[in-house]
């Protein structure tokens, strides 16, 4: 039962999620697939000291009651609700051209972070500023479940403010990207969640939103569809857009993003290039899965040590000089 022995074993086998370099030679001899690089521009999303806490009912006794007062109240039968810190003091700046993956275990606050950026949830503390209203692709599948995929495409495009003439021109592009074939004429409630996600991505991407937030979508689909989606995302980023991608499958992040944020229990552990960050996360997750908790803890500490705290110095160019006002328009 000694952990040392297990450690040695781990070094011998080639771990699937091992970070390149530190654990011998990487398993892929050819260059690994990475996200498409696009020139990075102005800030599009500023997340500053963001925290989201939930008060949720719990059947477990006083687990989340950290403070003395809470423990006291728990004694009087108030322990029904506990505070879950879904996101803790997260700060980062996203820029045009970036595609940012958010990785982390289930319940690490990935989806919450994305929903706050989308404006669907109110943060407990901190601010989220954005250059445009973000488009959010959540996990729920259908838009109007009773209606055909085609009708949903039309409705979605109109909702984003397109004219009927432009909708007509855009529909073929959406259909190609969604790659649903004749299923497009079936009611959307008959779609699998992957099909629904693909369709909604195709609809949202057609309007080329400045900020696109994708929660656990796009992991499905054949290679060709995946490639088309990625090209579309790169397209959006080239036009001064930013894409956020949440997935617990770190490989998706590794392959499709240029930057990644690793969240652990709501805390930002690492923020850096997608490949390295996602690899570090996978190596940690692999150790957790193998029951190597001490090693995983060490890896988490290493990652934390690498994280450089972001400090945001906000300034407003419109108030400094008259000329600056026209710069961004």
């Amino acid at each position, binding site marked *: 039962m000694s952990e040392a022995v297990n450690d040695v074993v781990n070094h011998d086998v080639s771990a699937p999620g091992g970070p390149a370099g530190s654990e011998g030679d990487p398993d892929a001899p050819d260059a690994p697939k990475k996200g498409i690089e696009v020139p*990075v*521009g*102005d*800030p*599009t*999303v*500023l997340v500053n000291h963001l925290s989201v806490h939930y008060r949720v009912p719990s059947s477990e006794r006083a687990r989340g009651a950290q403070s003395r007062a809470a423990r006291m109240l728990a004694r009087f039968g108030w322990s029904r609700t506990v505070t879950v810190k879904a996101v803790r003091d997260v700060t980062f*700046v996203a*820029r045009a051209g970036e595609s940012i993956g958010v990785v982390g275990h289930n319940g690490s606050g990935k989806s919450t972070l994305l929903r*706050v*950026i*989308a*404006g*669907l*949830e*109110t943060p407990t503390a901190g*601010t*989220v*500023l*954005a*250059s445009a*209203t*973000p*488009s*959010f*692709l*959540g996990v*729920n599948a*259908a*838009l*109007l479940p*009773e*209606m055909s995929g085609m*009708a949903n495409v*039309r*409705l*979605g495009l*109109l*909702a*984003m*403010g397109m*004219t*009927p003439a432009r909708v007509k021109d855009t529909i073929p592009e959406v259909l190609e990207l969604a790659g649903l074939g004749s299923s497009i004429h079936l009611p959307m409630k008959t779609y699998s969640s992957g099909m629904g996600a693909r369709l*909604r991505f195709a*609809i*949202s991407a057609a309007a080329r939103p400045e900020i696109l937030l994708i929660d656990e979508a796009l992991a499905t689909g054949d290679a060709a569809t995946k490639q088309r989606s990625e090209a579309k995302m790169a397209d959006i980023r080239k036009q001064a857009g930013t894409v956020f991608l949440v997935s617990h499958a770190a490989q998706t992040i590794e392959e499709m993003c240029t930057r990644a944020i690793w969240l652990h229990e709501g805390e930002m552990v690492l923020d850096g290039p997608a490949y390295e960050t996602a690899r570090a996360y996978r190596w940690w997750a692999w150790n957790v899965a193998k029951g190597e908790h001490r090693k995983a803890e060490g890896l988490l500490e290493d990652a934390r040590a690498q*994280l*450089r*705290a*972001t*400090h*945001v*110095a*906000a*300034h*407003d*160019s*419109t*108030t400094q000089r008259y000329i600056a006002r026209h710069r*961004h328009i």
Partner: protein
Amino acid sequence: MSRETTRLRSPLVEIDDINLESVDVSRLQPVGQRPPLGVYVRSLWDRRHFIVADSRARAFSGNRDTLLGNAWLVGRPILDGAAYFIIFGVLLGTSRGVDNFIGFLLVGVFMFSFTSRCLTGGAGVMSSGKNLIRAFSFPRAAIPIAMVLRETISMLPVIATMLVMVVAIPPHASITWRWALFPLVFLLQVMFNAGLVFYAARITSAIPDLRMVLGFVSRFWLYGSGVMFSLERFITHPTVLEVIQFNPAYCVLELSRDLLVYGQTPELTLWLTLGAWAVATPVLGFLYFWQAEEDYGRE
């Protein structure tokens, strides 16, 4: 440009490097912040095609699970009318002293069903539109407006049925020039209902429990509007009667009955009261709805 990410040697240098991000916030806004009213109204106008498409989508899904489908739009008020006729007309005898009770009842039930459907529909409209609200950014008022549009369009065959029945069922109402004024009453009712939907949509999305309360309000309102009996016969207290005259649904029913069933020119006060409601309710309702624009997608 303003994107130099400077590495500073801070006092904290022993602990960590600090990633100093210099951000120009002039282009950035808090997420989900509602736009000013003028911009809002303009973007709502830009979404007019979406409103029409959404109202059609609702028409599609409304009665789809039933065998008779949209025939229930007419079938429901007919059954309601029959039930009220048996209970109030035959058993309780409230029809005594009311000329052409069937015409009276038909107009009451059919016209009131429009307002009550808008009220209860408005109560659920934001939650049923949640998928769209979360997926796309558009002025949220498009959703209740689409609902009112949908209810208005589906009201047209209902009104046609009502007119046919009023004329066909003895004692037949005669068609007079006053029928030409009826579309105006309907228009005022549509405007009032739109305001009602704005209010119902916002309060029920803030407090879902009020959906139950609204069902109760709707029923209370039904009895307070003289749908199936003449209020003048039962209410003897003059102040109460005066208060009842301010009830917009009562005004709609009285005006419609005078024009369609009794061939009378209605009193001016009824027109003015309903007109005031029809202007004030949608304007105030729209403002009230717009004030919570950020909250509709939230959970």
